[in-house]
């Protein structure tokens, strides 16, 4: 199984291959189109701002190869900002997103008077809404580590696979055909993240 983590930006992605290694998979961080084209699974990470991420993908000329693999039906998993850039666009920026899952990325707005803070940073629960294999066998109350200020407002409720509540309920997992995006960080969510990655790698 060839797993490629698309390395197009700043930040330390080391925790992702480290966790995959525990599952017996040698994942490579790469921005080489040929390496990406040969992958059996793609992971699209991301930290920072929406426009900066989209700009970097264009700068390294990765948008065509990513679109090609998505259209070919390859399982692609977006993490955090890597999920958000799958949308049509974002309130955070002016550039169009990859448009793989119809929807808009919007600022997390808490109800007035709420004591919670933005960014949403910390562990929180997810509630699966569909029978997505990615979320199988996570245990009774699956919880993950979040760090974000925006969330994915999917155009179709059918694309929302799980929600999380932080002041308001928001989509924490979105799924459309072979493309899945998760708002949280599985690589920082010990056994829950490990199981989620294992599900993603399942044949």
């Amino acid at each position: 199984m060839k797993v490629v983590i698309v390395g197009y930006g700043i930040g330390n992605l080391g925790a992702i291959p480290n966790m995959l290694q525990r599952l017996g998979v040698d994942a490579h961080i790469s921005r080489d189109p040929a390496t990406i084209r040969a992958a059996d699974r793609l992971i699209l990470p991301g930290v920072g701002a929406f426009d900066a991420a989209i700009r970097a993908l264009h700068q390294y000329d990765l948008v065509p190869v990513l679109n090609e693999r998505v259209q070919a039906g390859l399982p692609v998993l977006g993490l955090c900002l890597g999920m958000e850039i799958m949308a049509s666009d974002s309130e955070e920026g002016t550039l169009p997103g990859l448009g793989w899952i119809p929807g808009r990325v919007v600022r997390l707005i808490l109800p007035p008077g709420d004591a919670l803070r933005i960014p949403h940073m910390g562990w929180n629960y997810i509630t699966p809404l569909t029978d997505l294999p990615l979320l199988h066998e996570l245990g009774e109350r699956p919880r993950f580590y979040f760090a974000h200020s925006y969330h994915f407002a999917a155009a179709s409720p059918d694309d929302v696979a799980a929600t999380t509540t932080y002041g308001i309920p928001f989509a924490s997992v979105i799924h459309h055909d072979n493309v899945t995006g998760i708002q949280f960080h599985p690589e920082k969510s010990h056994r829950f993240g490990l199981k989620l990655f294992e599900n993603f790698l399942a044949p």
Partner: protein
Amino acid sequence: MIPVLLLDEDGMVKTVRYTDPTYVGDPVNVINLFNRFEVDEIALLNIRATVDGTAMPFALMEELASECWVPLSYGGGISNLEQVRQILGLGIEKVVLGTAAADQPELIRTVAETFGSQAVVVSVDAMQTRAGGYDVVVESATRYLGVDPVVYALRMAAMGAGEILLNAVHRDGTMAGYDLALIDVVSHAVDIPVIACGGAGDRRDLATPLLAGASAVGAGSLFVFQGRARSVLVNFPERGALEAMLEPALRHRAEAQAQVNTARSDSTTRPTPLSPRPG
């Protein structure tokens, strides 16, 4: 429940009252052990960087962030925004400000405004005085500030700290139990989460800071030593046992919170900021 791990050059150590470091192990190995124990967060404090002015070990910190399967905080030797930017870029989730918070509290606000208050933890190191009161200390407890920890913690919260890491220095490494009186007064004074640290000697101690008002509990010796002989053995309670141990304290806190919510006529049911941090 947060293991607080001390970094001394390239080794992990544990101190007593911030002195006498005992070697505990190779940092990468220690982090790997805690990965398996499914702790929810790890704090890494560099005990030498501020005092000796040694450079922060960025390469090691990056390696540890890669090895770590849970959010990681780092403290020790941070004195400006550029360093914070660099540390967060290594894949570390939060920074802990100690001496810098005392000497240039405006740095807290700058970091909070740039990266969010959730990314900045302020360490409040309290030392019990001969008269029975407390004083805040910095630089690995070598400099006394002459300020009460409650007053100090309020000031730090007002500057934009996301959390307070409250250390009872006189209990550090003694395994004599938490200083619950200190935890009580500080936790009830500030409206941000307090992580109580210093003195855990028995797993039964772990619930006590929660009952005293702390939002989370940190421990060092308890998770790296075994027995009175302090033989090094990295350990952590199994999750089920931990939950059973903490359940009465968490229930007590939930009930207290429910009363507060009922008292507030305009409040609606919602998770408290503490709920995303089970355990």
